[in-house]
């Protein structure tokens, strides 16, 4: 696997934690971040699936093989971001569900009002 240097800014206490954890785990800081990212993606994948237009088969990967998800995620995420999508918050999910449920109720009322 090719590795390149990436400079990122994050909180000092977390930088210290990264160094400590890498030493404790016997991993490089990069390896630790890679594993953390894969684990994060695997844990959140079901929340992303619909927004990214992925099928259940696409995301049905064991946690041991979480790295496989990264490749599938990349293209889907590029498309979604280009279309202005983002990972929905819990409040946005609630609002969307209520909106769709209300639309369905209105449609049912309208259909019932149409004479046979």
């Amino acid at each position: 696997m090719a590795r390149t240097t990436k400079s990122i800014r994050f909180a000092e206490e977390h930088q210290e934690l990264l160094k400590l954890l890498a030493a404790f785990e016997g991993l490089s800081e990069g390896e630790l971040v890679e594993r953390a990212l894969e684990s994060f993606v695997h844990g959140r994948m079901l929340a992303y699936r619909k927004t990214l237009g992925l099928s259940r088969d696409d995301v049905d990967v064991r946690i041991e093989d979480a790295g496989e998800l990264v490749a599938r995620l990349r293209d889907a995420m590029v498309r979604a971001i280009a279309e202005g999508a983002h990972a929905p918050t819990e409040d946005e999910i609630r609002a969307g569900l209520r909106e769709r449920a209300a639309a369905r109720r209105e449609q049912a009322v309208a259909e019932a009002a149409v004479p046979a």
Partner: protein
Amino acid sequence: MIARWLTQRCRDVDVPRAVRVRPGLARLLEEQYPRSPLTDAWAGRTRADTWTWHHGNGRGVVWRDRDRDVLWLLCFADEHDGGYDLGHALVGVDPARDRLYPKLDPTYTAVGGPTAAWEEFVDEDALEWLRFIHGAAEFFDDRQGDLSVGETLEWRAAGVIRLALEDDLMKLTIGTRLVYADEATDRDRYLKPGEIEDAFLQLVGDLDDDFWEAHVPPYAHGYVNYLFVPPRPDAGAWLDARIAEIVAAKPRRGSDPSRV
């Protein structure tokens, strides 16, 4: 009646080895089911609500009798009183000490025990997976009337399912790990994302795609929340349909442990 409940592997592999047990079973049938002609065929079938356990040369079957609302435990062993001893030893008054499943017995062997590794006996793995969903379905069906806003109902077995009512929406939380603690060897695995989603959809009755969304809160990766517009599920109808699928050897996607 017994012929309806033995799992296929028990019938094919275990019963023929217990050569002295058939008279005892016939007697039990006579007592429990007087109209039995005692010529019932030993045809094994799989059901979501049966389980076979093993204890040395003894075998047993447990199943839920929905008509009578009792749990039957059938014990049989190839030695005098062995079945009684086994039954009493397995069923504890304290649920925490209940050893029905998947506690190992002292004579456990890897080739015949119910705690065999995943994928070793695909039929039993499939039943276990279905028991997980079925238990949650019953919980969901039985208890949703007790729900009030702000309270959470929790069903905890090998896995964890929580149900909460939030105004006009409901939230179902599914733990991502199945654990069978055992004195000798724990047996556990993480559910795959597809299995988690399958469990949710089977529990709520295949909701319209527009009316549910998954959400994983930050720092809570061991659980998946499903927010949904509440349906009116019927666990009994679901079970009947699922059993029909199993008998027809058509496990749904996510119910097939060979894919795990």
